[in-house]
């Protein structure tokens, strides 16, 4: 990981990484830069599946609860039918939304590859505006990567074996 104080230095280093065939690098920032600002690869995700599944689940549970409780004790109240659809719809609506929201939240955490027991290659200065560029050195040639980062004015370079 190369740690850069200036954003432009980090951008330059990223360009150099790509020129040297190392385009699968990770950018660590303390604030959200628009995706692609450093020339990094687009992250693919399947987040949109989660709310749909959650919504379906929530809807089903709500319908089961509302229909089940009405049928379990079939008492006419306020001259409404035993299976009163409008109230069932209201509660099913809430259940659907709750299911969608809960599963979206779980989905976001999962797709973000969280929770993570160890931070790995990281530096607390990232949350102070430093930019971290993390890359796997090809053929274990960390010296080359180290030189590349230093040439781009990296404040610090941290090394760690792959899989740590």
């Amino acid at each position, binding site marked *: 990981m190369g740690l850069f104080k200036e954003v432009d230095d980090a*951008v330059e280093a990223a360009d150099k990484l790509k020129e040297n065939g190392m385009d699968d690098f990770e950018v660590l920032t303390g604030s959200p830069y*628009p995706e*692609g*600002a450093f*020339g990094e690869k687009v992250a693919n995700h399947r987040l949109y599946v989660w709310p749909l599944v959650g919504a379906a689940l929530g809807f089903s549970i709500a319908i089961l609860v509302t229909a089940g409780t009405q049928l379990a004790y079939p008492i006419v109240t306020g001259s*409404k039918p035993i299976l009163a659809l*409008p109230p069932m719809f209201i509660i099913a609506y809430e259940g659907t939304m709750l299911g969608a929201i809960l599963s979206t939240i779980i989905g976001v955490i999962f797709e973000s590859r969280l929770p993570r027991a160890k931070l790995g290659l990281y530096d607390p200065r990232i949350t102070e505006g430093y930019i971290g560029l993390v890359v796997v050195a090809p053929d274990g040639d960390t010296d080359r990567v180290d030189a590349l980062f230093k040439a781009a004015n990296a404040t610090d370079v941290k090394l760690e074996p792959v899989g740590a």
Partner: protein
Amino acid sequence: MHNGGPHGHHVDLLVRTSEQVNEEVLSWTTRTTSRYWLLVLALAGVTVLGVIGFLLKLSDEGLDSHMPWGYLAAGMAFILTTSLSAPLIALAPRFAKAHWTRPISRIAEIWSVAGLLVLLISIPLLVSLPSAEGRNTMWFYDKVAEGWPVGAPHLYIALGLIFLVINGFGLLWASAIPDFAAARERTTGWRKVWYTRLSLGWVGTKRQWRGLRAGLGVLGAFYFMMLVFAHTYVSFDFGQSLIPGMRDSIMPTWQALGGIQSALATVIVTAFVIRAAGGFKDYINVNQFWSMAKLMLASSLLWMYFWWSGFIVLWYGKTPLQQDLLQLMWFGPYKTIFIMTLLLSFAVPLLLLMWNGLRKSIWGPALVSLFILSGAFLDKIRIYVSSYSVENVTAHVLETVPEGVTPDSSDIMMLMGVVSGSILLFTLAVKFIPVISMWEVREGMLLQEIRPLKRLPLKVLAKPE
């Protein structure tokens, strides 16, 4: 112009000089083709058919009773909810200083010309509308003092509609002044004469621009208020207060909201056509459709919410009157129309527009808009034909649920004539009033640019105070 970034980011921004904008828009405005005149002829033909239908109905039924005129009332309400609501799409984003509305704001404003048709149709409707005596109206006729307020509801409906239409024309004219000034320098003959007159000597001083913005703000705010008021009194006087015992406080606001939904649909469809017919693909791009599609999705959801709020209160109460009203309005003779409306105004828009890929396209929102306009059309028929079918308007409560009224040939001709008449007025107007707001587009070019943020080309939008 498309600016592709490393990740295929598409950034659409119009790149033209001011002169090019003027040239492209004005050349389309001043040029008519045979295809155009064929369209005008066809629309005029259907409109004349509508007039014939009206005359036939008039000779058969006269104007003594309101009951035969339900379909005409539905037609008028449809134009109010589509054409006359369309200018909202220019006003509201302008208030919020949104840039996306610039190429389509004039399209929205030009629809106010259909107000002439609304005024025309309102005449027989007002003549045939029963007096307010002996029944509940929003004007509280005879409740506060005998015979007061004088002329209710007819006078106030007429005044309201007249002021709305004048306001709409005023708004259209004011927003077009700088473009008329540009046009007066680039045209000859009768056009030059009229553009010169209508531009009021505009030269574009700082004071004039400030005055224009202030004027647009005031006229816009008034138009919004007058339109909401129009939806209120039209839905009351031609709808609710003709049904004894009906007391639905959400109806006017629901109709106003339907107006917003239909306004978006109207502008989207029109923008789709103008874009293709006028060659304005660089001006009206996916951004306009995407922004309007998002609003249309929201308004479709709100449409359902407002309907549901009315329904649940009536359903829950289960009093005999409430049950009769449910039958008359939704689950009785007009059940099929209501179900179709529910599908077209809510279910289909939701199921289609929930997908971002479809929202962020040009054909997607246009297709959904057609569904919404169809739904709005059916909804107006349901509301006004059912209310016009009640015979005894001075009863205390609804005595029986009347049978459904199917349209006869005159009704069908009138409905076709009303729709084609409004499209005809728009079609004629766009060959005089520049259909793209040139000054707003030019202003937008000054306040937007593409600039790289490090390695990513992004749009930069300025929001001056």
